[in-house]
């Protein structure tokens, strides 16, 4: 099932995204103080509610999407854990050690919302990264790779918007603070429950800026696949229901984001959502995929680092699945 939070007539309700629109399940889910807590309650009670939710979806008339506003499915996660790098990017090299950082959990926005670039002028550029998000259930601590499914509730799409220091290096060095500006965590459109996604390492991720394709990759290319991410994260932190792990991006499709643009992403099998960009300072950068000296885009590698070109492997067509 594809679970959402939506707002209609000022009321926030949990629902199921179907082909015809959204079916509310508000009366089936325990009442909670905040929309985030509502979704956490749904995650915790899902196994016992599932039959009734499915019956509701088969019987009720869905509400049309244009009659309501979709909210981010996790409006305020307890924590957002993000992988550093984590894609091979079609180059032959040694795997980098897995590592993570924490992103500002108050920075979440949803479908139709606006990324607001900050007045802060220290970062020289702001970029998009499109990522698969793992929606967790817990409490989970010390989970082994073999038991990874016990900590996973479902999956969503997430844009890890980033302020850059120099080149494509995140501003803020080891603090990763360039990832934590307000509004820099667009998420959506729904949580696809784990039973709908047999293999999270076989998903196709696409991202468009004003309709132009930028990221276009398969999660099969992850250096450290989902079971390893769960083991790593739960070794350090207790994972709770409604927390998020962002799996990292394939940097071959990085590009700037700037005033007036519309960003759209789709994880196939989960869904598509879009956000707008506003910049009070109206800064501008060259549009297109980032081709700087440290870009991993294959054309940029051949241009700036010809000595590494022999390491490049042709990108498989991620759509083949």
């Amino acid at each position, binding site marked *: 099932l594809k679970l959402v939070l939506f707002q209609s007539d000022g009321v926030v309700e949990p629902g199921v995204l179907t082909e015809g629109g959204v079916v509310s399940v508000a009366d089936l889910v325990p009442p909670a103080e905040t929309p985030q807590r509502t979704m956490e309650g749904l995650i915790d009670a899902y196994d016992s509610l599932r039959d009734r939710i499915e019956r509701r979806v088969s019987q009720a008339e869905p509400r049309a999407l244009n009659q309501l506003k979709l909210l981010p499915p996790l409006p305020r996660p307890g924590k957002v854990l993000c992988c550093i790098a984590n894609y091979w990017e079609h180059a032959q090299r040694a795997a980098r050690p897995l590592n993570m950082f924490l992103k*500002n959990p108050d920075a979440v926005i949803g479908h139709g919302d606006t990324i607001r670039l*900050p007045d802060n002028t220290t970062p020289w550029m702001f970029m998009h990264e499109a990522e698969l998000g793992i929606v967790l259930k817990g409490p989970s601590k010390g989970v082994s790779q073999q038991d990874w499914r016990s900590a996973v509730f479902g999956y969503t799409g997430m844009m890890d918007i980033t302020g850059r220091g120099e080149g494509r290096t995140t501003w803020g*060095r080891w603090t990763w603070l360039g990832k934590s500006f307000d509004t820099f965590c667009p998420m959506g459109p729904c949580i696809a429950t784990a039973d709908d996604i047999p293999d999270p390492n076989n998903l196709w991720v696409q991202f468009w800026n004003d309709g132009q394709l930028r990221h276009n990759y398969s999660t099969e290319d992850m250096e450290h696949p989902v079971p390893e991410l769960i083991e790593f994260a739960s070794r350090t932190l207790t994972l709770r229901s409604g927390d998020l792990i962002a799996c990292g991006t394939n940097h071959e499709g990085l590009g700037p984001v700037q005033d007036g643009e519309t960003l759209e992403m789709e994880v196939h099998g989960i869904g598509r959502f879009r956000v707008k960009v506003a910049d009070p300072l109206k800064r501008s950068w060259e549009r297109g995929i980032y081709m700087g000296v440290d870009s991993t885009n294959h054309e940029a590698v051949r241009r700036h680092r010809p000595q590494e070109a022999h390491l490049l492997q042709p990108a498989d067509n991620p759509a083949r699945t």
Partner: protein
Amino acid sequence: MKLATLTDGQPALVTPRGIVPVGDVASNMRVLIDRFGELQAKLRQRESDGAALEGARLGPPIVPGKILCSTNRFATDDEPTPLLMTLKSAESIIGPDQSMLLPDTFEAWDLYPEAELGLVIKGPAKQLIEQNWQQAVFGYTCVIDVMARGGDPMYGRDYWVSKSDTLCPIGPWITTADEIGDAEQLCVQSWQNGQPAQDYSTAMAQYSLARQIEFITSVMTLESGDVIAAGTAGGARPMQDGDQVEIELQRLGRLRVGIKARVAA
């Protein structure tokens, strides 16, 4: 006013007569911070005549939505590194007399318990200029910000491991800003197993509290109950299983915690 949170989650006042629960005035510390203006008279009344609770046990005074650990250093002649802050999560929070659990560190790094001034935020606070920094500060508390050291500066997992469960004790209570006066004139001391470790003054900062608030609110909105750990000085020693750490900040009280090896589940 000195505000604590009992282990059952309700707020309480720290008075000369003892700990006075005020769960009937505000259900939790975040509500108390947000509505302090209107609740203040009632709290003052309870401070003078409320019944103290025998055997009251304190938890962390607040479980912050965000914890921001500053790169600021006190009492050093070193060239300042750029002012930055890194996030810890609520999983790291423990209260007075609880124990930190030594994390699974991937590699054999040392873990340093650093005594820091904690700023408890009243929000939302966004894009504050330096002159207005005090608008964002509800009060102060003691923070032990544990840092693992020794990894690669860019991809080192020491920074990740510093965010482990239990590695950010706070307390024993929050003292409201009006009671502190100048927070940049406080003595900070720590002891490890009873032996003096850190001893510095918040007077000698690379970055003032005003500058720190202006900086972080240029990045993100601070919400009520968020905590900034305002930086530290030298003197901390690596900690081990069985150790005790105590820190005391002038006028803010003394926070004592233990250290235990993690017991396999």
